[in-house]
């Protein structure tokens, strides 16, 4: 029997109760939220349980939500069960003032550079990471460029005043 979203949700709720929440299925992919301190336990559980078997880390990245006080940074995990061909996604929220999230490098070697990239662009501090240094940007950089506080273009420049097009 192929693995279903409902089964994953049920198993997680049984094991973690209220620590996993906000289950949704946008475009068919089971998505949920995990308490910040529980990310490793959830990853390990999804990895080890024979009926879940999420042993492939497809992607790890972060998102900055500046309008959510105390939950400004989200680390997003995309996992894939290759046997039953099911993908899931979960988010862990952290405050931008102290963005400490446990590293997944012990479980997935792939997480090493993905976490370095996430640190590089969002400043998420992956606790326990063996080599948490910048990877794509220069080492001397002292800010985290993908955060929303850094607009791509100077919003105050006046030589591009295009009020005519409703964007004044």
């Amino acid at each position, binding site marked *: 029997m192929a693995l279903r979203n409902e089964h994953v949700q049920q198993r997680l709720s049984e094991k973690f109760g209220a620590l996993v929440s906000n289950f949704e299925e946008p475009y068919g992919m089971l998505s949920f939220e995990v308490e910040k301190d529980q990310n490793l336990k959830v990853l390990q559980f999804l990895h080890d349980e024979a009926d879940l078997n999420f042993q492939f880390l497809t992607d790890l990245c972060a998102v900055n939500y500046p309008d959510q006080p105390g939950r400004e940074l989200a680390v997003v995990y*995309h996992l894939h069960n290759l046997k039953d*061909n099911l993908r899931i996604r979960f988010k862990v929220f952290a405050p931008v003032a102290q963005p400490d999230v446990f590293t997944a490098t012990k479980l997935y*070697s792939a997480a090493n*550079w993905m976490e370095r990239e996430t640190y590089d662009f969002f400043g998420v501090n992956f606790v326990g990471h063996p080599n948490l240094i*910048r990877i794509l940007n220069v080492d001397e950089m002292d800010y985290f460029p993908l955060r929303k506080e850094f607009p791509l273009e100077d919003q105050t420049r006046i030589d591009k005043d295009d009020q005519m097009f409703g964007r004044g």
Partner: protein
Amino acid sequence: MTEHHQHHIKLPEGSIEKQTTTLNMGPTHPATHGVFQNIMELDGERIVSAEQTVGYIHRAFEKLAERRPLNQITPITDRLNYCSSPINNIGWHLTCEKLLNVQTPKRVDYLRIIIMELARIADHLICNSIMGVDTGAYTGFMYIMQYRELIYEIYEEVCGSRLTTNIGRIGGFERDFSNTAFTKLEKFLKEYPAALRELENLFTRNRIFMDRTIGAGPISAERALNYGFTGPNLRAAGVDYDVRVHTPYSSYEDFDFKVPVGTTGDSYDRFLVRNGEMWESLSIINQAYQKVQAFKGTDADVFHADVPEYYLPKKEDVYTKMEALIWHFKIVMGEVEMPKGEVYSAVEGGNGELGFYLISDGGRTPFRLHFRRPSFIYYQAYSELVVGGMLSDAIVVMSSLNLIAGELDA
């Protein structure tokens, strides 16, 4: 030696006492085929440790994408894996279509498959022939280049450009394939198999090539999965994961093809898997071309879906119809609001699973766009693959992984 000279030659501390040599391979080095650096510690010719530095051509695509409407992000994706740009373009369009819930007509899907499989061949033939170059056989590379040229001519006929193609639009193609495009496709389908057979004969049972690649940089299936390998590199280790089969997109489920797998995950198996995939791609293109030819009546002229919000209307309509003018204006000015949502969509790129994670907050540009770039993910395994081996093997391993700097650095 005078004191003045000693002042200028500043050796790292302890470098005289240590028994190993530090070798800096890259960032610009003829053997890296791209801008990345490896700092290797060598004991004679044996690699003791290797550390990779990446980011030399980082262009902040993810940040750029946050200020661009969807159609303007396509040219960014060109510059990821530039050996197979059309796959990136179409992968991005498929992501947008998933977000917008657009259903594409079958003919569009088949035309896309023709282009994507041509791109896969272009990607793999470069990788495999470059492996030849790195083992000392230049001829194959020079020879096979003219067949990539045939592929590029087809791109040119379809979209006007060759390398960074910006091919297609959200919903399909900007114009139908011309008769010349099909003639060129037929020419390619007719001539390429013989050339590929010759390329195979040059390498597959070539004693020198085999000695150089068998056992070079092997990886087990477990480690490959743990490292997030996808694509030919994972399949060479014996895992038959292929996005085209697991999560079919663009009607790949209508096609009959095999997924070649290897066993040892070494450079030779990676070569064989890519080689096998080129044959399968040829078969897919043949099937797709037959399907395209089978369309009759109005179906035979369809080359895009009906997506007025994102697909530029015909120029005649823009001049004569109000609706078309409005959409033209909104699309060009990037003033179309997209639906709210979060989408992850992946295609089987030349190097593996190329994923797009798109978050829309209902604005005109993505709130966040993340590219899952296979090259970036598997390059971190490089030191594990080469440590303990010879320096010359490290070069072969690098070219067999098909690292593309553009995809690596995004």
